């Protein structure tokens, strides 16, 4: 750098005058030229280097700008505005500024099985250009990568709308794209539209007919009277007409073209009225006046009645139309208030919401299932734990006739014997678990209905067992067991014992055993004991699951019953112990005798 500076700023004394230069010989002049030339070359080189540096600098600046723009763009997508009004302070990329991280962590907390790989994949896809144009696209992208069934879809929609801070209108737009719900609603909406159209047409027809009749009546009324009534009565009548005319204009404003014509007729009547009776001066006749007044008031009230009922009908059809349509704005939600209480109870049942035809709003569904899926504290066992427990019961054992070729053993035998005489056969594997649930229904078990339902459901669907059947009883099964939860299809206990239960059956009784009632009921204990002794002879393994925690069994019938049947509460350890019993490893806990005095 010093050399450079010396070259750029040469010392002053080396500069010679042209006079002195002319005196110098040619060689020195040539040498001076070459010196200057060298310096010039060096300067040019330096110039080029700095130019390269400049270019690099420009490129770096450009890259920075590009990345900055990307971050801005992603953030603007998240906030939903192209010019984000919020100020983002970012000196270094903080965890909070990572795109979609909030949504991702929310979903993780809600119970969706998401790993870091899934988040990275979404970012990768975003970088390339998926999910960009609007929120629906982004929602679709996240759903494809993070949501694996319909329950998770509800949860996802709920959290997505909350975090991406949209108003309720576009929430339902996003929910609209969620396919499983929208297919049902779309189809229903399409056909209901057709129905609504036809009913509206019918209503319009009725309305026009009634208008025509009324105007005809009024006309008939007034033409014979016009010769008799005085100006006073005319005025009163015209005012009456105006009164009846105004409700007309209010009620029948919407089907306009038809009404326009009908409306013109009373107008023309009115206009013709003042002209025709004016030349005549009829004597006042009170009695027909009164009757006319009565009749016109009657007609007016009839008109009002039909108009109001027609409006109500319209409202109902509009409500029916907008209900399945999901593209509802907050204004029209008030219209669906009529059937809301029923919807709530349907929506808050177990997560098989997709299977019920519920015309609930997406939000209701999402909130209910978000709570149920996210807060695992609501159920003492998570669905996953239940599934894993039931799967543990699978016995894929080799049983029966030997039909399969056991290759390894054959080869080993050949190795031992030196000759291949006969192949070694083995029986084939089969899934042979037979799981039977006996569920106590109604009464004290009402608060635990969803828990029992979930236990049975996971065993049936996700347990991959050969057979998982459910039968119901109330408090204590004496003579009959029921096939359905409403306890209407009865079957005698004896037929169960003889035909249904085999020595392969594992039986699970889910009942509070009187613990919920809190008292010792000796009759119940006796009956249950008799039932259990009978069962034990017919069934392989027997276990009792009690939805109430163990502390609540003391001093109740459950405590007594627990003495002669393995009874466990429905939490992780209890459930695991129950599964152990069902696999044949029953270890009576000596501690239990200490708990119950």
């Amino acid at each position, binding site marked *: 750098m010093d050399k450079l500076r010396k070259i750029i700023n040469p010392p002053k004394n080396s500069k010679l005058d042209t006079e002195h230069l002319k005196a110098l010989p040619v060689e020195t002049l040539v040498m001076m030229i070459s010196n200057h030339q060298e310096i010039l070359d060096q300067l040019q080189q330096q110039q080029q280097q700095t130019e390269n540096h400049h270019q690099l600098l420009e490129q770096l600046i450009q890259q920075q700008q590009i990345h900055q723009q990307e971050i801005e763009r992603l953030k603007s997508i998240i906030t939903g505005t192209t010019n984000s009004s919020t100020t983002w302070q970012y000196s270094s990329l903080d965890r909070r500024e990572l795109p979609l991280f909030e949504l991702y962590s929310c979903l993780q907390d809600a119970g969706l*099985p*998401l*790993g870091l790989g*899934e988040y990275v*994949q979404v970012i*990768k*896809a975003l*970088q*390339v*250009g*998926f999910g960009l144009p609007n929120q629906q*696209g982004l929602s*679709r*992208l996240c*759903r*494809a*990568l993070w*949501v*694996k*069934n*319909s329950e998770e879809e509800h949860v996802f929609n709920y959290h997505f709308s909350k975090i991406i801070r949209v108003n309720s209108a576009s929430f339902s737009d996003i929910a609209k*794209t969620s*396919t*499983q719900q*929208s*297919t*049902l609603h*779309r*189809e*229903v909406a*399409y*056909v209901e539209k057709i129905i609504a159209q036809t009913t509206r047409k019918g209503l319009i027809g009725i309305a026009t007919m009634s208008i025509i009749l009324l105007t005809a009546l009024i006309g008939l009324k007034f033409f014979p009277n016009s010769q008799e009534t005085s100006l006073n009565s005319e005025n009163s009548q015209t005012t009456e007409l105006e009164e009846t005319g105004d409700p007309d204009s209010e009620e029948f404003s919407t089907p306009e073209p038809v009404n326009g014509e009908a409306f013109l007729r009373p107008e023309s009547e009115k206009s013709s009225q003042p002209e025709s009776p004016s030349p005549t001066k009829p004597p006042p006749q009170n009695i027909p006046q009164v009757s006319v007044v009565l009749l016109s008031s009657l007609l007016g009230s009839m008109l009002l009645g039909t108009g109001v009922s027609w409006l109500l009908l319209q409202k109902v059809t509009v409500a029916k139309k907008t209900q399945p349509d999901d593209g509802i704005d907050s204004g029209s939600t008030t219209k669906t208030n009529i059937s809301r209480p029923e919807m709530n109870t349907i929506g808050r049942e177990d997560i098989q919401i*997709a*299977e*019920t*035809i519920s015309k609930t709003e997406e939000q209701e569904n999402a909130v209910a299932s978000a709570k149920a899926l996210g807060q695992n504290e609501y159920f003492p066992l998570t669905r*996953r734990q239940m*599934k894993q427990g039931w*799967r543990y019961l*699978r016995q*894929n054992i080799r049983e029966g006739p030997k039909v399969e*070729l056991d*290759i390894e053993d*054959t*080869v080993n035998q*050949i190795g031992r014997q030196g000759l*291949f005489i006969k192949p070694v056969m083995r029986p084939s594997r089969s*899934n042979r678990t037979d799981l039977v649930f006996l569920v106590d229904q109604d009464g004290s078990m009402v608060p635990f209905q969803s828990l029992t339902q979930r236990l049975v459901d996971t065993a049936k*669907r*996700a347990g*991959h067992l050969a057979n998982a059947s459910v039968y119901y009883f109330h408090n204590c099964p004496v003579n009959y067991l029921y096939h359905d939860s409403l306890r209407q299809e009865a079957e005698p206990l004896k037929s169960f014992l003889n035909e249904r239960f085999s020595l392969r059956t594992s039986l699970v009784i889910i009942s509070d055993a009187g613990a919920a009632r809190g008292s010792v009921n000796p009759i119940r204990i006796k009956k249950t004991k008799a039932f259990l002794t009978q069962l034990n002879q017919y069934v392989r393994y027997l276990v009792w699951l009690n939805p109430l925690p163990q502390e609540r069994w003391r001093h109740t019938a459950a405590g007594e019953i627990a003495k002669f049947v393995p009874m466990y509460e429905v939490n992780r350890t209890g459930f695991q112990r129950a599964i152990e019993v069902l696999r044949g490893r029953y270890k009576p806990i000596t501690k239990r005798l200490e708990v119950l005095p």
Partner: protein
Amino acid sequence: MVTALDPELTYTGKKQPKPGERDTRTNRPLFPYLPSKDIIEVVNLAIFLERPLLLKGEPGCGKTRLAQAVAYELNLPFEAWYVKSTSRAQDGLYTYDTVGRLRDGQLAANKLLKSEDLNRISDPVTYIKWGPLGRAFKSERRTVLLIDEIDKADIDFPNDLLLELDELRFVVEELDQEIEARFPPIVFITSNDEKDLPDAFLRRCLFHYIAFPEHERLVMILQGMFPETSEELSNKAVKRFLELRYEMQKLGGFTTKKASTSELIDWFRVLQRYPKDEALSKLEGKLPFASVLVKSWEDHQRYLQQTEPDLL
């Protein structure tokens, strides 16, 4: 790290086979497949992220045919693995013909084999038969692999495929060799949702639920499959079909089997054989050819008796 979308491997759903075109391998006629925009997007996402795509939907909505359509458009080799209840994951990778080897060993011991065969039998590779997944991994290009109806198989089946789908490699024990996929296959997995799939498996897949198409799309599908028919007939048939579907849903609930797209296509195939006016008049009255659409005795009684009072 940021790689752009490969334009050659982008599925647009626009390239359709011409009428009369046949599949080169199986010689069966090919029909156009008209996917919705959601499906196109998610297929491209799966191709880009190199993850399997899990498809669920009503039976007959076109899950299996999507994979074939993608293979046709992108002009890639197509491998199909139709899973049965007895399928094992190992069979999809490779099968080792132990019995054949034993037989050859016996023949060689009894000196019944020719000398050139002796070289062959000493190499265990001759007894390895590659399954669909194995072939997809060994191929020289990205293959489209379809694993059809994965929920039919036992629960161990998807669990056994985790390493193969995740890291795209498997070990052949008999050869003591590791086969790794040079070009990651595009995997489509279909499920009928009869049984739950394990979470570890679901985590590795993308998920899409194929919705039942709307009126316009159904008409497009019919026009694509039967180009000579009039649009009026297609419209009317689709309208009638959707009404039937609505009835089925209303009366039976969300979970009953409703008439699906493939049934509509079969029904329409019969209908379009008639001259246009006759077909239109048939659609006015009782549901024609109901046996194609209505599959249970209850439904039969319900719908065939319901339509008659409408003739006013």
